[in-house]
């Protein structure tokens, strides 16, 4: 029994270590490559023989990279701007929508909710062409605002997690405030919002990272190289230079991943809560 148990533990540990390596290898390899001399994908050792920070400085001085147009700082700024603005607008819209359908019983509520469910079943970029034509007409194509509008306009459709959260806030709180003479806005600002910190964090995070990482619409809407976001730019770096700009890509990827990973580490709790609460809804 004892030996059987330790054998089990031994295999478990072996499996855990193997999987652990598989989990961090890509990240470590990318970090190592970003410090490697030269620009090729190939490397005979895992830890580079010589370290350099040239690729990082190249990212900030695009004029040093001959033959490649990589306005990395520009892309970073674009992405940051778009993600932040979409986060603010999207979170507001999503909160208000979820609040309205969770706390009020009004005519048309049921059909509203089923419409949202049905809309969620269409592939997101089914709407691509029409949106494209719209944006051409509004003269917004190739501007960050177009992307912000597209992300925020769709934000309301992700209301179910927040609705689940609002459903759990007891109604008696509101009723008490109502008796004390509070109106709808008072109730929302003074009672609901302070209680909603976790869900606000969750929504802001998901909308921010969603916009930070989106590839499909960014590629459709942002046409000129200077307007690109990081996702589009890095994809192009891999796609058009393939293995000859790898170290540059690696450095770029590290700089993209660091803030998101740090953000994730600090807010893990909320993310996990949101995931599980979404799951319980079914």
């Amino acid at each position, binding site marked *: 029994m004892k030996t059987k148990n330790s054998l089990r533990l031994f295999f478990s540990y072996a499996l855990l270590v193997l999987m652990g390596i598989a989990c961090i290898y890509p990240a470590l390899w990318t970090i190592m490559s970003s410090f490697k001399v030269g620009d090729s994908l190939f490397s005979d050792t895992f830890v580079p023989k010589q370290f350099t920070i040239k690729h990082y400085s190249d990212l900030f001085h695009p004029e040093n990279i001959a033959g490649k147009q990589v306005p990395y700082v520009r892309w970073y700024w674009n992405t940051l701007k778009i993600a932040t603005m979409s986060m603010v607008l999207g979170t507001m819209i999503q909160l208000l929508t979820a609040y309205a359908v969770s706390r009020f019983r009004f005519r048309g509520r049921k059909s509203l909710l089923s419409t949202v469910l049905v809309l969620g079943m269409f592939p997101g970029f089914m709407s691509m*062409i029409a949106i494209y034509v719209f944006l051409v007409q509004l003269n917004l194509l190739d501007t960050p605002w177009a992307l912000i509008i597209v992300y925020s306009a769709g934000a309301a459709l992700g209301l179910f997690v927040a609705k689940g959260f609002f459903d759990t806030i007891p109604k008696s709180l509101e009723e008490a405030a109502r008796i004390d003479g509070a109106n709808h806005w008072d109730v929302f600002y003074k009672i609901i919002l302070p209680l909603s910190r976790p869900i606000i964090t969750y929504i802001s995070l998901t909308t921010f990272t969603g916009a930070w990482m989106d590839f499909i619409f960014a590629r459709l809407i942002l046409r000129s190289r200077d307007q690109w976001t990081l996702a589009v730019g890095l994809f192009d770096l891999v796609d058009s230079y393939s293995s000859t700009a790898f170290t540059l890509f690696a450095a770029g990827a590290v700089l993209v991943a660091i803030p998101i990973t740090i953000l994730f580490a600090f807010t893990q709790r909320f993310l996990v809560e949101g995931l599980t609460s979404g799951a319980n809804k079914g």
Partner: protein
Amino acid sequence: MNRYARTAGWLSVLSMGLGQLYNRQYIKGVLFLTAHITGLTYILTVLSKHIYGFFTLGEQGQHLVKVGKIYKNVPGDHSIFMMIYGLLSMMVVLLYLFLYVMNIRDAIANGRLRDQGIPVKNFAASISQGMSKNFPWVLLGIPILGVLFFTIMPILFMIFMAFTNYSAPEHIPPKNLVDWIGLKTFTDLFTLNVWSNTFFGVLTWTIIWAILATITCYFGGILVALLINQKGIKFKGLWRTLFIIPYAIPQFVSLLVMRNMLNDKFGPVNQYFRFFGLEGLPWLSDPFWAKVSVVVVNMWIGIPVSMVLVMGILTAIPKDLYEAADVDGATPWVKFRHITMPFVLFSTAPILITQFAGNINNFNVIFLLTKGGPSSIDYNMAGKTDLLVTWLYKLTLENNKYNIASAVGILIFLIIASVSIFSYTRSRSYREEDMIQ
């Protein structure tokens, strides 16, 4: 006794605002009347033309006109713009009709008040009363407008597009007109060999992929969670953090990194293969191995999420169940089989189905990793790992076959909708069974 209500109602049917004026709500009445006049003029002069255009989709494409002595190219009707303007106009007309109905209902309601001898409210009071009574709609106003114009309208447009011949090379405005062709796009997709081979090939792979991707991630997640949760395993928190790393890295970054790692010639994966004296494998360029690669890489991305979910559920299993089992002398396997597994499966079954639906539309993993490739001569504008969604993307953006693409989009919707409806009814039956709670 409903003299006022009836008169006010009929007056409002006659024209917006008359009923309100009759009820002595002058500001409201004038506003409704103005809305009525501008609305009607706009509809009759501008919108009706657009709506007519929606049905004809234009009468003349780009053509030559003799100006003086030379022929000049004159732009004709742009069918696609006509279609969109037509749709927009119909929406405005619907809004107008909605306003009309509201106006009648308002007139009747206030007439009824007067019948009962209650004075009607003045303008400011009725505004604030409306705001408060319809507060949810006030909150929902902007979101609904956003969804209407950036989701519903575009989806309607795409659905209509499937019934036209809008596709390269012959029917691309402004050079040529686009026409309604009914169901021909769908029959082409199913019966013309050029399309049907690709469609059924891609569809089969999409379904295989969705099943494989869902199952591997799901059971992989359960396995990892159970491994960590075993008695006797130390540093549980450390393992958990380690395995969550793939979830923390932005997806497009890890996918692009993976694409390089799997590079045939220079990638480290094949390098290790060669180090052990093995021939490297064509990870992304051979149809079979490309499929293996996308499934494995997807596991790498998806297992952490399932792991987190399952770990949450494991902590929620009541301890006394295990204690009772211990008293009855159950072996670890029996406990696992009869307590842990049923619990985990029942609480996560709904996610299994949403993940399945999500995988059908998993654009990023495929497009960023293989771009749908390797390309193949058996397929029309698609590669061997293309899913329906990535094929749709290529059809629209790279090949301008808009009508085929929208038909494919509609079919994807039908697949997802049937899966979701199935899941909905099933999860209802779960709830009714009350197996756990």
